[in-house]
C-alpha cells in the first residue's frame, strides 16, 4: 500500500526547470522543435537571453536557492556565436560553476549545459527530455542551496 502511494506521488511530481536559452541558436532550435511538433515534457520555463555569454554564474545559484528543481543553460555551438565569442567566454564560466557545484555535493544532474543550434529542433527536444528524466529521478530540490524557512532562529538546523 505504502509503496503504491509513493509511486503515485512520484508520478505526480513534475520538476520545474529554469531554462536559459540564447536567442540566436538554442531559442531558435526550440522554436524549430515546435514547428516540427516534436513532443517533449512541459517542464522547462524559458528565460530568453541574447547570448549564453549573458549568463551570470550567480543566476544558476539563484535558481537553485529559489528552489528550482533544475537549471538548463543552452547556447550556440562554439564557433556559431552570433556575437563571435560570447559562448567561448561563457564556456569557462560554465565549466567552473558545474565543477564547483558538483564539488560541494549538489547532484550532478540538477544543472545541465548544452549547445543546441538553430537547426537542431529534435535535439533540443531530446535535451529537454534527458534533463527532465534526470531531474525527475533526483526528486524535488531540497539541496544544499535551497533556502528553507528557518523560522527566524539564529542557529541553523
Amino acid at each position, binding site marked *: 500500500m505504502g509503496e503504491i502511494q509513493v509511486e503515485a506521488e512520484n508520478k505526480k511530481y*513534475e520538476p*520545474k526547470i*529554469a531554462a536559459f536559452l540564447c*536567442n*540566436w*541558436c538554442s*531559442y*531558435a532550435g*526550440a*522554436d*524549430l*522543435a*515546435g*514547428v*516540427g*511538433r*516534436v*513532443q*517533449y*515534457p*512541459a517542464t*522547462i*520555463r*524559458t*528565460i*530568453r*537571453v*541574447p*547570448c549564453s*555569454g*549573458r*549568463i*551570470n*554564474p*550567480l*543566476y544558476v545559484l*539563484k*535558481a537553485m536557492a*529559489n528552489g*528550482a528543481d533544475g537549471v538548463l543553460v543552452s547556447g*550556440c*555551438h562554439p*564557433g*556559431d556565436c*552570433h*556575437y*563571435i*565569442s*560570447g559562448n567561448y*567566454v*561563457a564556456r569557462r*564560466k560554465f565549466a567552473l560553476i558545474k565543477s564547483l557545484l558538483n564539488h560541494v555535493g549538489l547532484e550532478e544532474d540538477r544543472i545541465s549545459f548544452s549547445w543546441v*543550434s*538553430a*537547426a*537542431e*529542433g*529534435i*535535439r533540443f*527536444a531530446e535535451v529537454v527530455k534527458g534533463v527532465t528524466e534526470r531531474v525527475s529521478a533526483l526528486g524535488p530540490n531540497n539541496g544544499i542551496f535551497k533556502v528553507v524557512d528557518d523560522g527566524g532562529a539564529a542557529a541553523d538546523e
Partner: protein
Amino acid sequence: MSQNKIGSVLIVGAGIAGIQAALDLAESGYLVHLVEESSAIGGTMPMLDKTFPTNDCSMCILSPKLVECGRHLNVRTYTNSQVVRTEGEAGNFKVTIKQKARYIDLEKCTGCGACAEACPVKVDDEFNQGLGKRKAAFKQYSQAFPNAYGIDEQNCLYQTRGKAKGKDICLKCVKACQAGAIDHHMEDKEFEVEVGSMILNPGFKIFDAASLDYYGYGKIKSVITSLEFERLLSASGPFDGHLVRPFDKKEPQKIAWIQCVGSRNAKIGNNYCSGVCCMYAIKEAVIAKEHSHIPVDTTIFYMDMRTPGKDFEKYYNNAKNQQGVNFIRSRVYEVTEAKDDSGDAVIRYSTEDGQILTDQFDLVVLSVGLEPGDSSKELAKLLDLKVNKYGFAELEPLSGVNTSKEGIFAAGAFSGPRDIPETVMQASAAAGSASALLAEERGTLVSEKEYPPEMDVAGDIIRTGVFICHCGVNIGSVVNVPSVVEYAKTLPTVAYATDKIYACSQDAQASIKALISEQKLNRIVVSSCSPRTHEPLFQETLKEAGLNAHLFDMANIRDQCSWVHMNQPEQATEKAKDLTKLAIVRASMQQQTQPIFMDMNHAALVIGGGVAGMTSALSLADQGYEVHLVEKDSALGGVARRFSTGFRGEDMKAFVAELIEKVSNHANIKLHVGVGIKDVGGFLGNFTTTLENGEQIAHGVALLTIGGQEYKPNEYLYGQDERVMTQIEMDEAIYNHDPKVEGAKNFVFIQCVGSRTIENPYCSRTCCTKSVKLALKMKKKNPAANVFVLYRDMRTYSYFEEDYEEARRIGIIFVRYSENAKPVVSKEGDTLLVTVNDHVLDRPIEIETDVLCLAAAIKAPADGKKLSKWFKIPLNAEGFFLEAHMKLRPVDFSTDGVFMAGIAHSPKNMEEVIAQAKAAAGRAGVALSKDQVESAGLNAFVNKRKCTACGTCEAVCSAKAITVDQVNRVAVVNDALCKGCGACASSCRCGALSLRGCTNEQIVEMLNSL
C-alpha cells in the same frame, strides 16, 4: 546612360547573393525589388548542413538575414516571380515581372501550417532533394520567409481536378485555415517596376549525375549526390539528421566521395573546375564522422585536391591527419551495384601508379559540379548578355561584377561556380557598383515610417496589458487560453488581460492600439508564438500607439508550448501561465529605451594604394564620399605594377596606369602618397588617423587594403643562381625581353615554394594558374621548348582548368611530387639540374634547365600587426586579416566601420581582388550612407558607483565596445559599437555592468517568480 536615373535596383534571385545585395542597397538608401522564382527566399544555403571551413550551421547563420531582408521596409520581395521583359538603359530600366498565383494570401497567412496538415496530397519534397515528402500546400522550409504557405497548383487536387470543372473537390485546406487566407481563385499577375540598375544572381543548378551512366546514379540506390547527402546530415532534413541510407535506413559505416562529377570534363563540355566540391566533400566526410555514433570510414577519390581558399588547406590537413579521412588520388572508372544484395556500391578505379582496384561502400556520394541553371540562361538571353561557352555570364575583364551591359551587375554562380564568401563579396560589390551608378538618386525612393510622439511613462504606475493568443486552434486546442487570461489578471501590474484568436492579425493590432489608450496601458505582453518572428510586428504596434517599443515582452506559448506538449493540456496550460508570468515580470521592469545616435563622418580612409585600395577608393568616390587614400610607398599601384598581363590576358600595365590616373583626378579622392601612418583612434563614424607627417584625417570608416608580400625563397638555389627566379621575376624578365628567358629552351616550374608547408600551412591560390600561364607563354612562343611543371596538386580552379588542359595538350609536362620528396636543385658546372621523383614511373628523373621558376608563396603583409593594434582587429595565425565571419561577412572586420580587401585578407587573383575591393567599398558605403551611427539601444551600461575599472569587461568584449577610462577609473561603453550580447555584464563581478532589456534585476525577479 540615362539622364533620368532612378534610385531603385532590381535584384533577380534571392539566394544569399540576392539577400546580401538587397540588404546593402536598402540600407544605403535605395529601393530594392527582389524577384525570386520559388516560394521563399534563401536559395541553396538553407539546404546545406554545415559550411566549411568553420563548420558553422548554415541555417543558423542565414536565418537572421532572412528575417532582416524579409522585414525590410525598402525591400519589396516578389516570390513565385520572374522577369519577363525589360527595356531602357543604365540608370533607367523598365522591368515587367510576372508573379504566379500562390493561392494563399500572404497578408492573412500566419504560417501556422493547418493547411498543410489538412492537405491530403503528398509529393516529393524538392527542398529535401526528393528524399522526403511534402504536401501540395507547403512551405519550403520551416524558417522560410515569407513565413507563409503556398499551394502547388501542379499537385493540388482542387487545382488539377476541381477548379476547371467547377467542382468543390477536396478544399480541405480552406476548411482548416481559420485565418481565411486560402484563395483558390487567385490569378497570376504581371506588373512593371522602374529601376536604375539590376543585379543578377539567379544561382546555379547541380550537374545531373544521371547523365553519366558509369556512376550508376539513379540505378544504384546507394549512390547519391552531395546535395542529397547535405540533407541527410541536416538536423532539419528528411531523417532528422540521422545519417542513414535513404532506401533501407541502414547507418552507413563506409562512405566514398567521388570528385569532379560533371566538372573538369572536356568530353561533356564542362571543361572547368567547380571550385567548391573538394571542400564540401571534405566537410561532409568530417561531419559524417562527427555525426554518426558508430565509427565511419570515409574515403575521397580525387584527381587534385583543390583547397585554395582561406584556411581551406588547414581544414584539409586536419581532415587527413586528425580526422582520418582517406584521400585516394585516382581515376574512377565506374560504380556498380554490389553482387551481395547488400545494396552497396562498388567503385572500380585506378591509382596514380596504374593499379586497378575495386572497393565496396555502403554509400557513394557524387561530388556534383555546378552548372548554369535554366532560368539563368533564360535571363541572360532576355537581357542579351554575353555568356561563355558553358552558358555562364561573361563578366567584363578586371571588373569583378560588371556584365556586358552597363548598369547590370552579376553576383554568385551566375558568372561561374563560386563558394559562399566569394558570392557574398560579389553581391556587396554589385551593390556598391549599383550605388555608385545611382549615387545622385540615393534616398529618393525609400520610405521611412512616421510614428506619433512617444509617451513618457517613466515613473507612472505600471499598467500591463496582456494578450493571450489562441492562434486559431494552434494554441487554443491544447492550452486553456481563458484560464491563462484569468491567471494573468491576478498578477502584479496587470491592468488588463484578454484573449485573441490571432494576436498578429490586423484587427488584433488595431484593438491592442485602442486598448493602450483606453486602458492607459504602459507595458504590453503578448503570449503567442516566437518573438524571433513576431516581436518586431508587435513592437511596431506599440510605436504606432505612442509607446516605446521596448515596454514589451512576449511569451512563446505556441512553438515552445502548445506545439510541443500536445498531449499534456494541463501541463501545457501551467507552463503557458508561467511563461506569461515571466514575460509580465520582464516587461514590467523594462524601461523606455531609445536608439542611440552618434555623428557620422562621411569620409573614408583607404590604407594601401595598390589595385585593391585604388578600386575601393574609386568606388567610394563614385558613390559620392570623400576618400583619403594613403600609400606609404612613393608611388601608387602596389605589386600589380610588376605584372604584365592578367589571367585573362589583360594588359596590366595599362590597367594600373588608368586606375592611377582615375584616382589622381577624381574630385572626391585626396591622395597621401609616400607617407605612412603614425596612429589611429576612434570608432565607426568618428575615426582620427594621424599620418607620419603629422597630418590628421577625420574619417567615418576605414578600408585596409595593404596587400601582401612575395616569399623570398631560401631553397632551390634562389639568390645563388640568377636563372632561378620567382614568378613575378620571370614575368618581368619576359616583359623586359631578358635574354636569360628569351633564349632559353628548357623551363622548369616548381610549385608550392613556401606554401602548404608546416610554417605556412596555406595555399597561395594563384601560383598554379600563374605557372601554367607562364608555361603556356613560353611553349607557344617556342613550341620546341621543354617545359616542365613540378606540382603537388594542380589548383587551376574555375575556368583556369581550360589553361591546364591546353597546357597538357600542347606538350607541357606535369610531374607530381609529394610533400616529403621535394625536387632537388643542383648545379653541375654551369648546368642547372632539377631532380624529381616521378610518381607514375616511380623513379627519379633529372631535368636540365635554363630557367627555374619558383612559385613563391604570397605572405601576409608586414604592417598587419600595427593595423591590428590600431584598429583592434584580429589576424589569423599566418598574419592575414581575420574577417568578422568567414562566410557571410567576408570584407567586414568584427570592429564596426573597418573593412578589408585584397591580398591582406588572403591570397587571390586580380579579378578576385577587384571584386573584393568593390565589396569593401560597397559595405563601407552602407555605413557612410547613414546620417548618424545608430544602435538599437539595448546596450550594456555602467553603474559608475560600483565599477572598479578592473578591465574584465574590456577583455571579454568581442565588439571592442568597452574601454576602461583609467583617469576616472570607470568602464565606458561605446554605444556605437556595443552589440548587446551581455558577456561584459555576466563577467562583471562588481555588478557595475548590466544590459538594457536583460538586467540582473529582471533575471533575478524572473527567477524569483518561477
